[in-house]
């Protein structure tokens, strides 16, 4: 099943501001890029052409795994501000 279909079953309230921030220069030098596959919501997407990390923060499930798994400790991670982010009704 496509990750977008899974995420479609969820309630999100999108903030205008990302609660996940990376230093793109550091990502450029990161060979492993575990964030790309470890994130359960595929929030991190590497744009090969532009050499740019696209962060779909609005899909974040707020688990905290990326922050720990990032090879270069390059993710500045916090919870979204109140009223924003994901809502679990069947957790």
């Amino acid at each position, binding site marked *: *099943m496509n*990750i977008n*279909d*899974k*995420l479609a*079953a*969820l309630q999100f309230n999108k903030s205008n501001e990302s609660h996940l921030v990376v230093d793109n220069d550091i990502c450029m030098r990161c060979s492993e890029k*575990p964030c790309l*596959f*470890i*994130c*359960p*919501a*595929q929030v991190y997407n590497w744009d090969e052409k532009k050499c740019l990390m696209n962060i779909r923060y609005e899909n974040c*499930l*707020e*688990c*905290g*795994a990326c*922050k*720990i*798994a990032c090879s270069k*400790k390059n993710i500045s991670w*916090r*919870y979204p*501000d*109140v*009223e924003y*982010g*994901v*809502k*679990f*009704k*069947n*957790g």
Partner: protein
Amino acid sequence: MENNKVEVIVVGAGPAGVSSAITLARAGKKVLLIDRADNAGDKNMFGGTIYAKQTAEIFPKFWESAPVERAITEHKIFMLTDFDSTQYSYRYSSKGAYKAFTVIRSKWDKWCVEQAQKEGVYYAPKTLVKELLIDNGKVAGVKTQFEDFYSDMVIIADGVNSLLAKQIGLRKEFTDSDMTLNVKEVFKLPKQRLEDRFNLDENTGSAVRILGGPLKDMFAMGFMYTNKDTVSIGFGVSLDELKKQKVSPYELLDDLKEHPSVAPYIKDGELVEYSAHMIPEGSFNHIPKVFDNRVLLVGDAAGFVDNIHLEGTNLAMLSGKLAAETAVFAIEKGDFSASTLSLYYKKLKDSIIIKDLKTHNNTINVLKKNILTLTTLCPNLACEFFEMFTSADEISKRVKYRKFLSEVLKSGVIFKMMPLAFYALGRCIKK
């Protein structure tokens, strides 16, 4: 609440925080419970089941009024091979003596908070604690997104990621091997169909653990729980193993759901939710500093989880209660220093929390080292046994027995089970 000041602030309204807050209110103390969610539980996810005995210590006879889903009357283990499985079931009649219930966090946590409010706890929902307020080097309260709150003490119950424990240096940065990442999907089914599929009565439920199959190459375990009219299915894997395998957790979950022995349970179910949450590894050596001047650390934030027996909510509630008792002692003494609050650690040591964490201090490492024995070898041999035992054909039984025996010997399972058997034995003997 006068001037935004109380005796104790509790950050996080999960099982640990609620149990702290209600214990303090029952002792007549002024306590503010804070959570970032709109409704308590909306940010939380677990398997899962709460345990009746330990939950009733905080909420006596809770099952009479709380929103529980089903009383667990069956535990199952599925051992999967690539296409087949053996399944072990332990069923018991509850006779009114409940052991565990499935619950949904958004309903359960909300109910718990309502009980706490009834008993005098101030509750601040939709309130994100940004950091602890430090005054003259001492914790003086919390800074939230909108306003500051002050207190003599703070109980940190902010769960597995505990940013607050990190802020004041109670814990170090986590590493990949400190955490398991869990993903879960919830499928809605007509109630009757769910009960027929799982062989259940109206209010009874089953809890399933799943080993092997798509999860065979790593330290990972699947689970399945029955709720009223939904089935929760998911798995947990340690972050270091996931990184090694270079696979995404949701693809693995899809593979698990498609396994021929699992798929029929959720067939035609409507996907109503997908979620993710981490669990701390839960070993004695990884316990952070759980007390300091004016602060105590409880629940997942302190790493109080027994991953082998899938216990977390119970340890969270117990640690919350012990922290609250310590806080009551400190308030009455008028002394919130680390040395007074060290009473908390003494209470933890006398409780099952530290005892069990010590027992399982190294268990995960031992399991990780021997994981293929459990996830590949044993499931394969179990299926081979049944295959051999149940197939009627022209081959004589003696030839079949011999062949199976030689398979067993060749596999080296006896030799490979030794480290696990000795480890288990060691756990029993050790003082």
